């Protein structure tokens, strides 16, 4: 009789894919736009770029990445328990906020509410994830979380909100790749 075994491999693949592709696609959108400037323009400015290709790349990246993060979070919530399940639930909510950022562009005032909610939710997800990692003795993931937090805090001191946003997004991508690898090596 064949027995069903729960596998975290598809979820890990989703996390690694999102973490790797989002910075690349944002970079493509920035180069397509041509006028976007670090520490002066926010990433959301790309969503209402004069260049429709750049705007399309940014908005569709947010929508697809948000949906994939939500799927990853829900899957992790169902697969794990305790802190890890809570981390999955918060990530799923964060994914929905990211999806909303892609749909509700900067032309609408609600965009900023979704953007702030996304960053706050991801910050909570990182802290809850760190608690789960410490509890389960996943040293490498804890170390990467510490690294990400230090880099974001330094950026908060040295840059304004536009620069901080870019550094935070890249740091989140590194963190989510680490989470993906951690999930693939953990026992489901």
């Amino acid at each position: 009789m064949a027995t069903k075994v729960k596998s975290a491999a598809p979820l890990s693949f989703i996390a690694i894919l999102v973490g790797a592709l989002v910075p690349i696609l944002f970079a493509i959108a920035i180069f397509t736009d041509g006028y976007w400037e670090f520490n002066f323009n926010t990433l959301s400015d790309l969503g209402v770029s004069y260049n429709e290709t750049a705007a399309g790349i940014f908005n569709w990246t947010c929508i697809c990445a948000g949906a994939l993060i939500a799927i990853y979070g829900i899957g992790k919530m169902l697969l794990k328990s305790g802190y890890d399940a809570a981390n999955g639930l918060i990530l799923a909510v964060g994914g929905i906020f990211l999806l909303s950022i892609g749909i509700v562009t900067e032309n609408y005032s609600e965009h900023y509410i979704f953007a702030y909610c996304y960053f706050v939710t991801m910050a909570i997800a990182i802290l809850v994830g760190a608690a789960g990692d410490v509890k389960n003795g996943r040293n490498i993931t804890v170390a990467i979380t510490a690294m990400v937090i230090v880099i974001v805090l330094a950026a908060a001191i040295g840059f304004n909100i536009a620069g901080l946003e870019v550094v935070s997004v890249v740091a989140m991508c590194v963190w989510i790749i680490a989470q993906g690898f951690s999930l693939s090596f953990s026992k489901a």
Partner: protein
Amino acid sequence: MSAMPNTMKLGMALAFLGAIGAFVSMAMAWSGFVESAPIVGLDMLAAMVFFAVAGCFSTYSPVKAPTVVVLSALSIAFSVIAAIFNAMNPIVCIILVAFGIICMFCGNLPSTKDYIDANRLV
């Protein structure tokens, strides 16, 4: 006392090389004016953490094995911060990040963990 594993020797060697690289960046960042002090300080911070990691890989490590991993990650973080604030050449930063990643994995290996926990003084 068992012989020191090669992973610890590798970690220590790379951490020292990382610290020397950060020190060279620090010297290059100094422009002769006091205004360059914060930039020099960022490189100094990266160098100090790399030296701390090298010390953690010594025979009588002063910290637990997981702390070595976290310190290695912090050495990566400070190298990246130095590069973000134009205090370090991006190529030097990439090399230091590679050294930090290898130190992180060396610190997480079972042979290193066992040796550190067996010989730790504090």
